[in-house]
């Protein structure tokens, strides 16, 4: 999630300018940030936990969902499952349907992502009684 940025620190500049014949600059001295890169599993787990909060409120759901859609990725089914259950706790069917529309839109030209998500979420959708936008005829104009 965090792309490494090469920063020209003072030591880096010094090693570049001091070029002598037969002098090989050490290849390992790159100036990456020392922050730990979050793995995909950690990212997913963090978001599943966020939406699994039992007393999540409407604002937190909106904020979480809008932030998640802002990222350059399509959320995993388990994150969406957690979000849909949060909608159920908040008695908000409209948001649940909206979330499904949003991830379909988020997939962009990759038309095979959304059917996969729906297939994975099918048990949850049936259990909670959430209709997909296709079922309701809202995917066409």
């Amino acid at each position, binding site marked *: 999630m965090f792309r490494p940025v090469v920063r020209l620190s003072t030591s880096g500049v010094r090693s570049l300018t001091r070029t002598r014949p037969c002098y090989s600059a050490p290849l390992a001295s790159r100036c990456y940030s020392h922050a730990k890169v979050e793995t995909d599993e950690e990212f997913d787990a963090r978001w599943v936990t966020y939406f699994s909060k039992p007393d999540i409120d409407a604002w937190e759901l909106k904020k979480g969902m*809008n932030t998640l859609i802002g990222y350059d990725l399509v959320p995993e089914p388990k994150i969406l499952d957690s979000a849909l259950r949060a909608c159920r706790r908040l008695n908000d069917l*409209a948001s649940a349907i909206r979330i499904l529309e949003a991830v*379909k*839109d988020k997939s962009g030209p990759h038309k095979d992502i959304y059917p996969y998500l729906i297939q994975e979420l099918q048990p949850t959708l049936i259990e909670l*009684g959430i209709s997909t*936008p296709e079922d309701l*005829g809202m995917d066409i104009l």
Partner: protein
Amino acid sequence: MLTSRALVRGLKSGFWRPLSSTSSVQAAHGKDMSPDVLDPSVPQYNNRLDTPLSDVPFVRNLNSEQRQLKEKEKGPWTKLTKEEKIALYRLTHELTYPEMRRGSSEWKTVLGGVFIFLGFSGMLVWWQRIYVFGEVPHTLSDEWVEKQTQRMIDMRINPVGGFAYHWDYVKKQWK
């Protein structure tokens, strides 16, 4: 966005008042369009692809049957009919994603307008050609050009790669 709201306000204060939203329509929609409630400092409803869940629902002032539907929403969603689910969605959201992405036919109007103005300009140029410009100089008449061309051939203008190069002096014709 601001300019379209300003346009709406302009329309409303003008003579198109009956055509723009009546007050009953305004009251039903949470999105208040009256001038003193177009307040950017309070949360407003937006149709945005990148913000699926808006700050406030589209319809905020629910009538009694809408309130009943909201009560039914608190129970199992399996008991809701498709129409009720669509109604619930439309209470919270004005436009679906396909509706947000829908383009308009404005380009046809623009293109048509461009052609109309181009045509009008063409008319002006044509009129100018007929009524404003005088005769063309006599040196452009066919007779003069013939004599001129013959003179150029005799003078051997550009004999290497240009004019006289293309004249065959033996056969006395163009190559």
